[in-house]
């Protein structure tokens, strides 16, 4: 196609300005698309759908099994179902604590010199129980 009509200077300025404006709009749009925050709820970024098990369970984070300690007390901490009574028993000490909303529990137990067999037990509504044991050796003198 060949332009036979000579463009007026006004039409030329207008066309140039429009090209510039549309170019800027296009680039702005491109930038927005590339840099817009990702939708975090997209199914690709969402984790697997898991439902917390409702069956009775107990895990002990502390103390570690076969721990040798030189301190007269030890932290007992772990996790179970929320608001559950946890019995912590050793050869010379017994106590019951309740787990928090998130199921975590923590307390400090005094140790006897030598071998300490520690058991943490949780009970369900009908008396079913789950327990976990730890052996801790308390030595008064460092080796």
């Amino acid at each position, binding site marked *: 196609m060949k332009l036979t009509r000579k463009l007026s200077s006004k039409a030329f300025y207008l066309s140039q300005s429009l090209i510039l404006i549309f170019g*800027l709009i296009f680039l702005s749009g491109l*930038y927005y698309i590339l840099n817009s925050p990702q939708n975090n709820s997209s199914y690709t970024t969402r984790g697997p759908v898991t439902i917390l098990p409702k069956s009775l369970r107990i895990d002990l984070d502390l103390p570690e099994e*076969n721990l*040798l300690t030189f301190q007269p007390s030890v932290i007992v901490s772990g996790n179970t179902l929320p608001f559950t*009574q946890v019995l912590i028993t050793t050869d010379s000490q017994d106590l019951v604590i309740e787990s928090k909303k998130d199921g975590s529990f923590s307390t400090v137990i005094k140790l006897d010199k*030598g071998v300490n067999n520690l*058991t943490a037990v949780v009970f369900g509504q009908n008396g079913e129980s789950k327990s976990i044991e730890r052996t801790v050796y308390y030595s008064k003198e460092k080796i």
Partner: protein
Amino acid sequence: MIKLINIIIIIIIINFIIPYALAVDASPSSEIKSKLEELKKGIASKAAKLKREVAQKLTNKSYVGTVENKTNNSLTVITKNGAKIVTINQDTVSPKTLNLKNYVAALGDIDDTGVLTAKKIILLPTTNSQLKTYLWGQIISISDKLITLKDKDVKNVAVSLNSQSQVKLNDFVILTGTKNGNDIFEAGFIFVIP
């Protein structure tokens, strides 16, 4: 005049549009680079923490159990978690006589295979006492110092309490104690479930 305007437009395009278009390309990669750097630092600090934790988990350990096998430089100790190997060296402090079936505590550090290098071996007295256990149940009768519980298997269990215990009929309780020869659970600790 038109030429001048053309030049101005070209200058505008060069100065504003091209750098802007390049920036669209360049900014994500620089962002990714900085994120990668942050990630690297995070991984390095986590690895160091993990290393410290692993080292901590291997030191100051004890194996408590019965001596099942014995050589000049090692013992096999049967613990409640199974057989464990304990190595003995010239620095190990141990009793003069150590026999098979002795109840011992081996104290030291373990390696990643679970073998404990003993710093000290302690001979422990054999426990003949009744094993402490626990019990859950509902009180169905109370008479003086003896109560009867209905346990989780709906079996009746006779329990002797110490004089300070304050329990009521139908209370749900958690007990610890031992079973005596008469099949009576001797409770040392009682907790009434609220």
